């Protein structure tokens, strides 16, 4: 029996051991929250709780996979039966277990259904889909146009034997609430509690149903999905909903340098809606945050490329001849995946990606790879289900679908990962589970860890990730906080987003802002984000790259071969 408390600090221990009542774990960034949750599960099982009585809910499928891997590594078969997944996956399981047969209606399918129901353009249908989704997520009553459409829409879904993603949350809650499904756990752990939607909250209450101990893990300072309906007050008022709950605060940050932690804390302190906590860094002091002013979005991208190359000792002879000390055989320990460039909005990705591409630096824009191939894959797998034989394995399936399949592709790796996750189940069920998961993968799960490349992503996508060196691009008024095309930016949520971005960095943090920028057809004022003035002065090193006197277009080096 492994020592479940080994290596845990005081607060983590408390979070693991407090199982006789509800518990709120306020976990700052980099404080080992996944580790704590994994050990908590181990502790519960060690105390004799049946694995099938334990539920661990994560925010993304990727997070669920990671947690499953870690739990499995720690407990092996002892943990068989613990449900680790997103609310959506859980809802799906509840519906299937209740005997419902249906397929999942994706956002594309939704739009199509609505188009036929409303007889309108795709754009109108898409907007309506979002409207309906909001209603369901926020557990509101529909108003205006939506009212008329919703019933027809739900009818159409029913006729087509489909459920949309939001139904995966709402319907199970209905079923359990009405007593038509008996589903419950004695211990529920919810990660990223600060970002759950009212719909998910309702499902949680149904599942907890007075018998479960709920352990909510999260950070009020990292609530960034308010725009999708998440209500921070659920987190702040936890004890109102779950009486006599204990509170444990995880304050020791193992991820970042002290300077980064303190800089981030300096910013987030200015929010009022939060649970007060002072993070301390366990690691080295590190270097000040670098704030750098550049001419425009192109020089911004070039700056990032140069900094990456400098740390990697150059990526081609062409560039090395430009470096100050090309024969400094300092031992570089970086890989491309150690770097990330974070931006507030997808419109910023192009300039970055184009520059990276021009300089040949491998990069991966996260959230970009369209799930088109995946849809084809899902359809193929569904076809497989109908011609099923018991001895089918994942390799067999893949080879059946695509004889030319390359074992090194991301899809293959994903399938293999899922196959391993459901390996214990009877093959037909495993296949069904795999299909379910594939159907629900969102853009947040598109991050392919095998491809070693610099990650380019929005700040939202960066949640839960960490990198040795982080570049925050476009830290300017209008972008951070994001105000383009919005009347009222929720300043506190924007500040939290900024905080999340800062706390992704382990060793170095660069905050870059351009003096001139064109974004979404608009020319921006080009002044640095006000959040930067909230970082204590002594933790920042400021620098500026002057304007280029005249632009040289792609000067080619001499033909020295």
């Amino acid at each position, binding site marked *: 029996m492994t020592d479940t408390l080994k290596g845990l600090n005081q607060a983590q221990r408390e979070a693991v051991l407090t199982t006789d009542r509800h518990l709120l774990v306020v976990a700052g960034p980099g404080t080992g929250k996944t580790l704590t949750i994994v050990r908590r599960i181990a502790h519960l099982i060690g105390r004799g709780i049946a694995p099938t009585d334990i539920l661990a809910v994560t925010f993304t499928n990727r997070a669920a996979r990671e947690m499953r891997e870690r739990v499995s590594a720690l407990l092996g078969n002892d943990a068989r039966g613990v449900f680790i997944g997103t609310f959506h996956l859980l809802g799906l399981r509840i519906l299937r277990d209740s005997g419902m047969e249906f397929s999942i209606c994706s956002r594309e399918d939704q739009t199509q259904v609505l188009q036929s129901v409303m007889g309108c353009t795709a754009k109108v249908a898409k907007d309506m889909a979002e409207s309906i989704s909001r209603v369901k997520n926020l557990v509101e009553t529909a108003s205006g146009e939506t009212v008329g459409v919703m019933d027809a829409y739900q009818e159409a879904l029913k006729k087509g034997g489909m459920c949309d993603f939001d139904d995966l949350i709402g319907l199970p809650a209905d079923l359990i609430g009405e007593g038509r499904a008996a589903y419950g756990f004695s211990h529920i752990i919810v990660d990223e509690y600060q970002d759950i939607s009212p719909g998910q909250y309702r499902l949680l209450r149904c599942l907890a149903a007075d018998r479960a101990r709920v352990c909510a893990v999260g950070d009020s300072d990292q609530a960034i999905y308010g725009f999708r309906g998440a209500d921070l007050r659920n987190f702040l008022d936890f004890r109102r909903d779950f009486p006599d709950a204990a509170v444990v605060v995880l304050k020791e940050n193992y991820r970042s340098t002290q300077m980064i932690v303190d800089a981030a804390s300096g910013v987030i302190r200015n929010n009022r809606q939060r649970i007060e906590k002072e993070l301390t860094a366990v690691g080295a002091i590190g270097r000040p945050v670098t704030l750098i002013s550049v001419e425009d979005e192109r020089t911004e991208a070039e700056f990032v490329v140069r900094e990456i190359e400098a740390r990697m000792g150059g990526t081609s002879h062409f560039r090395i001849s430009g470096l100050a000390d090309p*024969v400094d055989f300092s031992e570089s*320990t970086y890989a491309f995946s150690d770097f990330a460039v974070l931006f507030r909005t997808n419109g910023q990705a192009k300039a970055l990606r184009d520059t990276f591409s021009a300089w040949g630096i491998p990069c991966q824009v996260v959230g970009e790879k369209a799930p088109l191939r995946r849809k084809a894959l899902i359809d193929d797998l569904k076809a497989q289900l109908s011609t099923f034989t018991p001895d089918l394995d994942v390799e067999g399936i893949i080879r059946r679908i695509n004889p030319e399949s390359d074992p090194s592709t991301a899809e293959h790796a994903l399938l293999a990962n899922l196959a391993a996750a459901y390996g214990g189940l009877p093959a037909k069920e495993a296949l069904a589970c795999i299909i379910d998961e594939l159907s629900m993968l969102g853009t947040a799960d598109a991050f392919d860890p095998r491809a070693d490349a610099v990650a380019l992503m929005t700040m939202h996508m960066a949640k839960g990730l960490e990198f040795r060196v982080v570049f925050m691009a476009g830290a300017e008024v209008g972008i951070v906080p994001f105000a383009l095309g919005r009347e009222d930016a929720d300043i506190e949520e924007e500040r939290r987003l900024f905080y999340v971005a800062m706390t992704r960095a382990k060793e170095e943090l660069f905050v870059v802002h351009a003096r001139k920028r064109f974004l979404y057809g608009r020319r921006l004022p080009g002044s640095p984000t006000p959040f930067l003035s909230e970082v204590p002065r002594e933790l920042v090193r400021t620098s500026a790259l002057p304007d280029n006197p005249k632009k040289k277009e792609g000067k080619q080096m001499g033909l020295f071969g």
Partner: protein
Amino acid sequence: MRFIADLHIHSSYSRATSRDMVPEGVWKWAQLKGITVVGTGDFTHPKWFAELEEKLEPTGHGLFLLKEALCRKDGVPRPCVGEVFFLLSSEISCIYKKNGRTRKIHCLIFMPDLIRAARLNLALSRIGNITSDGRPILGLDAKELLKMTLDIAPDAMFIPAHAWTPHFSIFGAASGFDAMEECFEELTPHIYAVETGLSSDPPMNWRLSALDHLSLISNSDAHSPAKMGREANLFETDISYDAITEGIRTKKGFLGTIEFFPEEGKYHYDGHRACGVSYAPPDTILHGYVCPMCGKRLTIGVAHRVEVLADREAGFRPPRALPYRCLIPLPEILGEALGTGAGSKAVHEEYVRLLSTLGNEFNILLDAPLPDIERVASPMIAEAIRRVRQGLVTIKPGYDGEYGRVKIFEERERREIKGQGSLL
């Protein structure tokens, strides 16, 4: 039959590469140089691949010919005309972290046909960006790349490129490995050769017993037509993909290489340019790696890296070692003979004149009888070629960013020979 092969060049789609590196240009210059089999280079680049598909046709033996309609006779002097075969090749830059350190390895891949090259390209396109540069940079472990290559084509050839350059090679001091096995692990037996590169010659490589079973090949890595053939391989086999790769694998029919003087490289020796200090590796060690003039650390060169990894003394020649010749490209020889730069108009005119009368460059440098050369060229030029053939050149090795110099004549000698000429 005997022929010369230069299997590593770059297309116009590679960074800092001449626009003339197109199939027609490569075809023309291969004849001028005397190269019979030339690597296509850059087959991973979609546009170059399309151009190869369009302009070349397969011989049926794993090699390609330029389509008849594109073969312009007027660019090539008659004595130089010869058949030119293309072999599908490409170079990939693998930059990744292994065993705690950043590694940067350039890898050469030869493919027997377009279909399998296309398969590899497809697989690579899923890993990263192969459209920006003829030599793509991928965040991919070289071992993984080897595995992918072999899975697609067991008869593909995978060769670590320019094995000793400090920054982008398998043994490079900055980001390489100390041994092949560290890089390729259990797949190491699939490596049959290394490319010695401009910065090393066979004798330097003979100092590592670990390389004894490998073939040491040499290619130009040319980014412009004039640089083609500055290093090359000599074969006596059928002109087919299988025979050539078999020759590389087993040394059967592989007769040796033509080399660039490694001392010309700007990081051959160790030293400190600012202080004018240049040391051979043993002296560097004696001086404790420190510059005697200013006390700062000396910049370490390629020879030193060989010294560090070598398990034999300099001068050792392994039993199966193949012969090699160190040459200087003809334009540079002419430059020195005429007292101008290698790119001057005078050199160009003389170059064309000599090729038009004596045949291709390799023929002039290696085979043409000296009396024939003397009849056509000036005494200075003839003497220069004679000296290069016999290795009678003085070499001042490069160090710390300063190019090395290979000289054929002393000033005094040049005046003497010139004087002789005017008397005849």
